[in-house]
């Protein structure tokens, strides 16, 4: 049977991708950002996940204003890196896992989560930057990736509670898949940042760290944080953290922290990263 063995959360800042692609990771500005991922890279080489369900948001790359799916699951064989206006990132094509992706889509829909099924799309920095941070710069990504795109741009995004519950439904779906697969769920985006208006540049390290604290253990307080709190406390783009709750929900009732990293700033954003395992 397939099983969810771990959860990873990380910011997905485009400038971090550019720093990797342009060979700037050794510069003083970037060193402390990347140092916090060394542990995870080594750990992933041992873990060798077969599949990563990667929760992210599309930043006006695959989806424009014509269609705005709340939860969209990528069921294709492969997904190409998107051209976001400066050419596609020089990273490998992302290979999907259509069998498991379709199984999750069907299972979630029967579980009353009405997923949008995507058979063709390009994937932007929201998905490829986390892959680069955790897997480095390989010729081919070492795992199959199931993209799960969440609308956190046009309001209202899904509630934190709904995201957590979707994670729980994904766990049920994975555990009912016959093939023996080591599956991880990654939640990306955040942490505090605001990219617009006179309040841009907002960072709230205290709030962010309190959020990281509460991803561990058996508390489910995070699922009850209303949107307005993310907006006030973590900036308008801090709302991306609801996507971390899909990862957390998928890990079951109790978790243990294996690794944690926090650094300000990368570009306009607080970098947050955590590795969790479910505790049976």
């Amino acid at each position, binding site marked *: 049977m397939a099983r969810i063995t771990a959860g990873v959360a990380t910011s997905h800042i485009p400038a971090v991708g550019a720093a990797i692609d342009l060979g700037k990771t050794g510069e003083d500005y970037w060193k402390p950002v990347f140092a916090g991922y060394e542990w995870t890279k080594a750990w992933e080489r041992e873990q060798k996940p077969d599949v990563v369900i990667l929760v992210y948001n599309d930043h006006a790359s695959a989806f424009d204003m014509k269609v705005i799916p709340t939860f969209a699951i990528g069921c294709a064989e492969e997904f190409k890196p998107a*051209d976001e206006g400066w050419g596609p990132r020089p990273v490998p094509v992302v290979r999907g896992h259509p069998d498991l992706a379709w199984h999750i889509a069907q299972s979630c829909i029967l579980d009353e989560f009405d997923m949008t099924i995507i058979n063709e799309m390009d994937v932007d920095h929201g998905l490829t930057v986390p892959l680069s941070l955790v897997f480095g710069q390989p010729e081919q990504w070492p795992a199959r990736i199931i993209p799960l795109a969440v609308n956190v741009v046009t*309001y209202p995004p899904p509630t934190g509670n709904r995201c957590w519950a979707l994670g729980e439904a994904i766990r049920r779906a994975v555990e009912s898949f016959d093939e023996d697969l080591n599956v991880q769920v990654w939640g990306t985006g955040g942490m505090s940042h605001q990219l617009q208006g*006179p309040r841009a540049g907002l960072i709230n390290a205290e709030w962010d760290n309190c959020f990281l604290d509460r991803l561990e253990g058996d508390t489910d307080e995070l699922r009850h944080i209303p949107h307005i709190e993310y907006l006030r406390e973590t900036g308008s783009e801090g709302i991306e953290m609801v996507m971390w709750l899909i990862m957390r929900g998928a890990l079951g009732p109790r978790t243990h922290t294996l690794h944690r990293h926090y650094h300000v700033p990368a570009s306009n954003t607080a970098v947050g990263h955590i590795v969790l395992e479910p505790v049976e």
Partner: protein
Amino acid sequence: MTGPKDVKSYLEDFEDIPGTRVFTAKRARQGYHLNQFAMSLMKADNRERWKADERAYLDEWPLTEEQKQAVLDRDYNRMLDLGGNIYFLSKVFSTDGKSFLQAVSTMTGMSVEDYQAMMLQGGRSPDGVRSKKEQG
């Protein structure tokens, strides 16, 4: 439940946040063509035509004159007021060869250098900018 179920009270809260335009349905409708125009710059051919004659390229889109002028002026706060969303508008500043940090700093009234220095010192504190009511 993790927030108000009533749409009206849910939206009203957003108006209380200083210096912030939440991308609500109202803004999404007002800015539909503005955002779709910005999105079109993801294609290399369109970028070339845009660079060759910005005004002519804008005139192909059903934007208001105010929206067109805000784009030509690269006035990002104004574009947000007129329904733009920053992720869509990022195609405009990316085409200009500008980073998020450079473009975002223009909305704060700070120089790029001062804005970057603020970020290096830990960013803008939420104290005093959580709520307009709190500011009095």
